[in-house]
């Protein structure tokens, strides 16, 4: 087991013992077992063990940063916002996909925490995974509003009713953290499978009345490794830290695809552009 030797020259402010006192009483030490892999060294996968002091509110990310700053500077982690917004610190904690910054060690209720990188993505180093394919699949969904009548005239806007916003609002909360992709059992066997995030985002734009690229997206979705390989295991929705329900989106897209296959009915045209002055009389 690695130990804190006290020889780390720079101790960040938030790990200053005095600051730590401000966090309250040290609850206990928790054993962290962390996945280690460095392709540059040509070594295989191994796990390193560390003892980390836990205070009230200590997150897994705090603990990993403690390890990196006090115990083992060679540990690689990806993180940024520390508030479950950027989606950078996704990892598998005690067997379940979670954001390290959103997961408090005490809430895990275990004396031993096993941390490993997300599944279904190549590991770059330690807990850092390569998102390239994940984002390529996202890009293939045209994750933006597409219209033929693009008009950058600021006197115009695309009108939408509140009910129409609700149709896709939940899916706008996706932070592209990749937890759903990691938890998806289909992604584990079918590496070409688009994955829950990409399809959830496709639904986000297809359900948007301002958008006009449903057919383009359906061409990709309705392919061999698209919608129909989803078995509705629901793990994507289960692990989402933002409460998004990609499984629901995929079922909606399946229904739409079947409907189109059976009736050849096209989606209603995108919402019309409305002049602002029609709504607000000029003074």
């Amino acid at each position: 087991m690695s130990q804190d030797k006290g020889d780390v020259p720079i101790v960040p402010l938030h790990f200053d013992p005095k600051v730590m006192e401000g966090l309250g009483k040290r609850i206990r030490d928790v054993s962290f077992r962390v996945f280690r892999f460095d392709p540059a060294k040509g070594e295989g996968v191994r796990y390193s063990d560390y003892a980390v002091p836990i205070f009230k509110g200590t997150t897994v990310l705090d603990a990993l940063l403690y390890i990196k700053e006090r115990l083992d500077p060679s540990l690689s982690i990806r993180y940024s916002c520390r508030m479950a917004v950027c989606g950078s610190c996704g990892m598998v904690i005690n067997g379940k996909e979670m954001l390290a910054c959103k997961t408090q060690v005490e809430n895990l209720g275990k004396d031993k925490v096993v941390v490993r990188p997300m599944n279904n993505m190549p590991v770059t180093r330690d807990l850092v995974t390569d998102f390239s394919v994940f984002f390529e699949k996202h890009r293939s969904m045209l994750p933006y509003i597409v219209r033929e009548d693009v008009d950058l005239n600021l006197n115009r806007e695309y009108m939408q009713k509140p009910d129409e916003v609700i149709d896709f609002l939940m899916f706008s909360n996706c932070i592209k953290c990749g937890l759903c992709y990691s938890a998806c059992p289909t992604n584990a066997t079918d590496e070409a499978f688009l994955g829950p995030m990409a399809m959830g985002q496709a639904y986000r734009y297809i359900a948007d009345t301002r958008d006009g690229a449903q057919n383009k997206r359906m061409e990709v979705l309705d392919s061999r490794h698209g919608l129909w390989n989803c078995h509705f295991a629901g793990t994507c929705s289960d692990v989402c830290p933002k409460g998004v329900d990609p499984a629901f989106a995929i079922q909606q897209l399946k229904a739409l695809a079947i409907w189109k296959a059976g009736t050849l009915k096209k989606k209603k045209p995108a919402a019309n552009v409305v002049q602002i002055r029609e709504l607000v009389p000029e003074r």
Partner: protein
Amino acid sequence: MRESRFMLLQYITGSGILVLGAMHFALLTLQPGGLPTSLQYSSVKSVYLAYGLLFELLLVLLSFHVFNGFRKVLIELHQGRTYEKAVSWLMLLGGSVTFIWGTLTILVFILGVTG
């Protein structure tokens, strides 16, 4: 053909198999005397044409449903353009052979009964 068309057919054939399978089961068991007498020559002869048509339709539905389902499973387990093309053609061949073999069997059954 798009996957949604395949899946639409998969759902339709699946539903059809349920209905025809239930009819097949009913024909076997709901006859006077039940299952023990259902395969007696006289019992079969009384319904041979209906049996033949039912089996032929069931065969069509099963040939598509089974081999299309198998194709989806195999493509999900392994990927690659050549592999996927090979699987698709192999399943088409398998479905066709099953259909032809089954149809011949049904014809022999009907002709045998009528003959």
